[in-house]
């Protein structure tokens, strides 16, 4: 799911689906040889578009009502408690006072800063966002200028900066979520289950327009059904007033809703992500459903049967939604950056693998892929058909987050690749030829199995004979920052090549993944935010990332324990973390080193174009 694609999806009308050989750039970020140039400028256009969505917050509600217990209050309960038990002064602290539902719906909140986070139908800008937008816009500067600017920043005095209450709940979520999934839910009482369910920092719901539950990662049917009902009521209230509800804040919880086809997808999160970031995550869940059903089947299921229970049709594929949600919760650079990860291979080896696929290609083959450890090794495609990274991301997720396909057997399954064609199925031959490596051969012909099976056999034998299988195994290893820059302060980094819609990450070994991903997520929000800043720092304890020029650090806060930096260049962006308190000079040097290192081996770390036939 690229950001590009995401925004296109949001705006697309149900039946305006791009034909694959007649693409609209805005819709399809593709792996193609000829795509480098327009990417950067096009990106910022989209970023702007996204922001207009981001900032559809809602201003203050009418005067207060009597308190009533409703889901949003329940959900915010814990977070509110955390806020109030924290004695540090907080300019932004918010606590939900009441949410009531009788006629119409609104959340009423105390908010020291502004009306941000409350719900009415009148859109206004959120103050918490405007902090970011005050960051000077550096978009007119070229890379060289940015570099020279970095010198200035480094000597700048740091002003104080406020943390929002969301910060505290992020700490909680980062700390507790790894531990609480072990217990078998069935042995718990209803109350215990409910308590555990409420304690989750993030929820995803999918429901039909009629309010029928379609999917929820957590909670039994009885727990979720009442919540689903309320969500549906809230959403349809806004729909009825022809005002589309996109997001609202309640206490420290952000609610984000997307309406896709006949479904509503809802994220409720107190992890500090922006509405745009959450929408990307929701969209990936929606795309997963499409890949199971196709848009045509999904639409048909509800036509004339408003009350249809979609779970009947999804049967068995919940594991893929679960897998996707789990990887989002764990922190997925692929979803955050809307990009694919590849394994590192010498160009000659990658070419040899491509060649193997090309040589044994059968007439009905559409796409041929070798994938290992959720990363792309090699891909071949027809010249006139692009391959869309979001489609591949779905495929990777299905292959690697569930065990269904990973049994060493051969599989033949219908699969919709929504960006390729959301209305029809393709058919995929899937075979894991090692525990971690799969060959996937995709055809539009449902009878192609035996033909593709023979091709797979030859390709796998070829990989074996030529020793390429070992090369693939070696390429899986991600470099540690110190491997490429001895003595560097950088602990972890990710680099995205926008033109290739791919990223490379350093080793996660010894890195606190969730915390690091939260730093990246904040930095990402800043550099993709309204100011379109090109350099941003996240200072441990600041609780918010700042664009260059904001400066600032409010020391003493609980923090993610690491400093972070993002740098956006022409066609690429890089995010890195270092130990808390690292000098900015050192961090900048490290990041420059990464950029240089990647640029010197782009053909190894990225699949440039892929082989075509």
């Amino acid at each position, binding site marked *: 799911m690229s950001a590009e694609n995401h925004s296109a999806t949001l705006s697309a009308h149900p039946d305006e689906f791009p034909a694959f050989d007649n693409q609209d750039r805005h819709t399809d970020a593709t792996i193609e040889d000829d795509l480098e140039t327009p990417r950067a400028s096009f990106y910022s256009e989209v970023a702007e578009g996204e922001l207009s969505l981001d900032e559809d917050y809602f201003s203050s509600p009418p005067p207060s009502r009597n308190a009533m217990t409703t889901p949003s209050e329940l959900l915010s309960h814990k977070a509110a408690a955390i806020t109030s038990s924290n004695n540090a002064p907080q300019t932004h602290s918010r606590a939900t006072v009441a949410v009531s539902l009788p006629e119409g719906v609104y959340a009423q909140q105390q908010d020291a800063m502004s009306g941000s986070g409350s719900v009415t139908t009148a859109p206004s800008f959120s103050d918490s966002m405007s902090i970011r937008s005050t960051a000077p816009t550096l978009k007119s500067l070229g890379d060289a200028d940015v570099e020279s600017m970095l010198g200035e920043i480094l000597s700048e005095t740091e002003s104080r900066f406020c943390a929002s209450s969301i910060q505290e709940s992020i700490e909680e979520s980062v700390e507790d979520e790894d531990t609480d999934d072990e217990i078998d839910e069935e042995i718990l009482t209803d109350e215990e289950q409910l308590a555990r369910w409420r304690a989750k920092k993030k929820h995803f719901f999918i429901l039909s327009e009629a309010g029928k539950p379609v999917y929820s990662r957590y909670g039994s049917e009885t727990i979720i059904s009442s919540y689903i009902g309320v969500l549906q009521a809230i959403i349809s209230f806004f729909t009825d007033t022809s005002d589309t509800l996109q997001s609202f804040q309640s206490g420290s919880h952000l609610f984000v809703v997307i309406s896709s086809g006949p479904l509503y997808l809802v994220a409720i999160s107190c992890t500090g992500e922006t509405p745009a970031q959450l929408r990307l995550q929701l969209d990936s869940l929606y795309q997963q459903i499409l890949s199971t059903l196709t848009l045509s*089947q999904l639409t048909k299921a509800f036509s004339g049967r408003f009350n249809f229970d979609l779970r009947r*049709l999804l049967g068995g594929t919940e594991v893929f939604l679960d897998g996707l949600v789990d990887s989002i919760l764990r922190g997925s650079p692929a979803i955050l950056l809307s990009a694919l990860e590849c394994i590192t291979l010498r160009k000659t080896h990658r070419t040899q693998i491509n060649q193997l696929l090309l040589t044994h290609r059968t007439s009905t083959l559409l796409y041929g892929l070798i994938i290992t450890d959720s990363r792309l090794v090699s891909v071949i495609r027809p010249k006139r058909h692009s391959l869309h990274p979001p489609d591949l991301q779905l495929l990777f997720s299905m292959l690697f987050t569930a065990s269904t396909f990973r049994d060493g057997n051969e*599989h033949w399954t219908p699969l919709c690749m929504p960006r390729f064609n959301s209305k029809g199925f393709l058919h995929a031959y899937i075979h894991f030829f090692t525990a971690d490596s799969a060959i996937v051969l995709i055809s539009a012909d449902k009878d192609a199995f035996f033909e593709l099976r023979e091709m797979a056999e030859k390709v796998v034998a070829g990989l074996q004979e030529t020793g390429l299988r070992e090369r693939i195994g070696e390429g899986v290893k991600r470099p540690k920052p110190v491997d490429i820059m001895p003595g560097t302060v950088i602990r972890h980094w990710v680099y995205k090549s926008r033109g290739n819609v791919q990223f490379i990450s350093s080793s996660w070994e010894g890195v606190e993944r969730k915390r690091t991903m939260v730093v990246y997520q904040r930095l990402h929000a800043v550099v993709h935010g309204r100011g379109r800043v090109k350099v941003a720092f996240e200072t441990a304890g600041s609780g918010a990332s700042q664009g260059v020029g904001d400066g600032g650090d409010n020391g003493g806060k609980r923090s993610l324990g690491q400093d972070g930096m993002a740098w956006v260049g022409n066609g690429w962006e890089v995010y890195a973390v270092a130990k808390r308190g690292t000098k900015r000079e050192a961090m900048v040097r490290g990041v420059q080193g990464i950029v240089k290192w990647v640029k010197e081996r782009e053909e190894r770390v990225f699949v440039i174009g892929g082989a075509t036939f």
Partner: protein
Amino acid sequence: MSSEGAPKPSSSVKLVLLGEAAVGKSSLVLRFVNNDFQENKEPTIGAAFLTQKCNLPTRTIKFEIWDTAGQERFASLAPMYYRNAQSALVVYDITKPTTLLKAKHWVAELQRQASPGIVIALVGNKLDLAGPPDASSPGEEEEEDRRAISTSEAKAYAEEEGLLFYETSAKSGENVQAVFEAIANAIPESTLKPKTVGTRQGMGQEQPVRVDFDAERGAKEGCAC
């Protein structure tokens, strides 16, 4: 005990497994092919393709097995998997009455749409969940009898439709070999063609053909697969 000795005539038989989700189709195949059982198998998506040899006294049958998903969504895709099948296992779960109903639908569909000579076996799985065989004398067994479909009911239906009939447990392995052997024996000699489209020679390294089944498997009749 199979691969050595004089080459016996060998032929491939396409077999498809059909039946409602979670009745144990994949588990039956896993038991037959790998002699293994998994307590919590993830549901099949689309279909899995597996092969397994079965040695009969006079010939070797190589099963090419389509293990299909049973979900509602899958129904419209099923013909793709059963179209050229020479044999089918239609599976239900003896503890769930609705699954026999679904099985009957599949049988009817196969009789209507599949190749005319198709050999169909009706298989009631999860036999391990049933109480002791002489359920007529309830006694004081601690194990709960979860059987919901009687053997006689299913058997009568199978006879009426001319189907092979077995009750199996993928979990214990009971009768699993027997079903496949019965199918292998029931395939008319005349419909057997020597080796085939789906045959794959180079699979050896990842998927050794498993020819070394032995007695401990408990397959009395010994499919000798």
